[in-house]
């Protein structure tokens, strides 16, 4: 039994190796959202195309919708945009854009150049609504249900796998 204590270092090493190995598959910089399962934050922002009109959280009640955070200065957004444009055509779920910390003219031009998948885009010039949504990088995408509860957050560009494996089943479930 005296020999057991000499095995302690080995034991600790094995535990450590297990976690380090697991760590290789994780992203230390990814920030999971604490808002999943909680109501989307209150917001009321002007439309990008018609700034006199505003869209607020209350307007979205009763439907399942997606919120895609984008900006004209965001390089990674260009990566997911074609996918989004195509998806918007085939899906019945409305996609709203949150134009994050952007100039109106630049945003409009970007949509004109690369396509507009959004039912409407709203302007978050100073990023406050973004902060309320826990946005820290662009692009990010939220799925919000009929009652205004956030059900899913995609950090980084959307991919076909994410849409097919995660978002579509979720949307089907929420819409049923």
């Amino acid at each position, binding site marked *: 039994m005296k020999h057991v204590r000499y095995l302690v270092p080995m034991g600790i090493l094995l535990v450590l190796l297990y976690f380090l190995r697991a760590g290789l598959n994780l992203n230390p910089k990814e*920030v999971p959202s604490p808002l999943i399962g909680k109501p989307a934050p209150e917001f009321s922002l002007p439309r990008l195309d018609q700034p006199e009109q505003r869209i607020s959280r209350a307007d979205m009640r009763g439907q399942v919708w997606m919120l895609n955070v984008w900006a004209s200065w965001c390089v990674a957004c260009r990566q997911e945009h074609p996918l989004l444009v195509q998806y918007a055509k085939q899906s019945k779920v409305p996609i709203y854009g949150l134009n994050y910390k952007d100039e109106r003219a630049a945003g409009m031009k970007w949509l004109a150049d690369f396509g507009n998948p959004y039912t409407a885009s709203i302007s978050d010039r100073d990023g406050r609504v973004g902060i309320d949504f826990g946005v820290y990088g662009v692009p990010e995408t939220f799925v919000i249900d009929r009652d205004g509860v956030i059900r899913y957050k995609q950090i980084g560009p959307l991919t076909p796998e994410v849409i097919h494996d995660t978002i579509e089943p979720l949307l089907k479930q929420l819409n049923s």
Partner: protein
Amino acid sequence: MTRLSLYSSNSIANMRKLIRRLFVTMAWSLACAGAFAAEAKPASDNPALEARVMKISGELRCLVCQNETIAASHADLAVDLRRQVREMLQNGQNEQQVIEYMTARYGDFVLYRPPFKPLTALLWIGPAAMVVGGLGTLFVVLRRRSRLADDAFEPDDKDASGDPHLS
């Protein structure tokens, strides 16, 4: 890469414009130097508030940086979050409310001082437990040995020098 690589192209362009405008500014400044040289004003309108902002910001993580506080970072999000902290403090809210605001939106990840909860109990108590455990174990082992008979040990040859302090 460093925090500085996360300046948006906007601020870099601004930076270069500023340097290019330097001579004009300098000429203007020189012309006025004699008349307006004075005790420099604080960078912010309310240094005491700013100090509090910085103190709280020093506890919050910059989420777009590699490992920096929002006090130190120049990233856009850091600037925005500092502004948020400043406004909350100006509205009379306290540090605890600022912390709650941030964690409600970004989770515990945004805090550099991990909150004390069951999940982090081991983290906070661990070091103290290890000290107590370690010193305790040492004490027990040494005391047990001190109770052994002399023949359990190797014989002791006296140090030639006799100097008890020779290490």
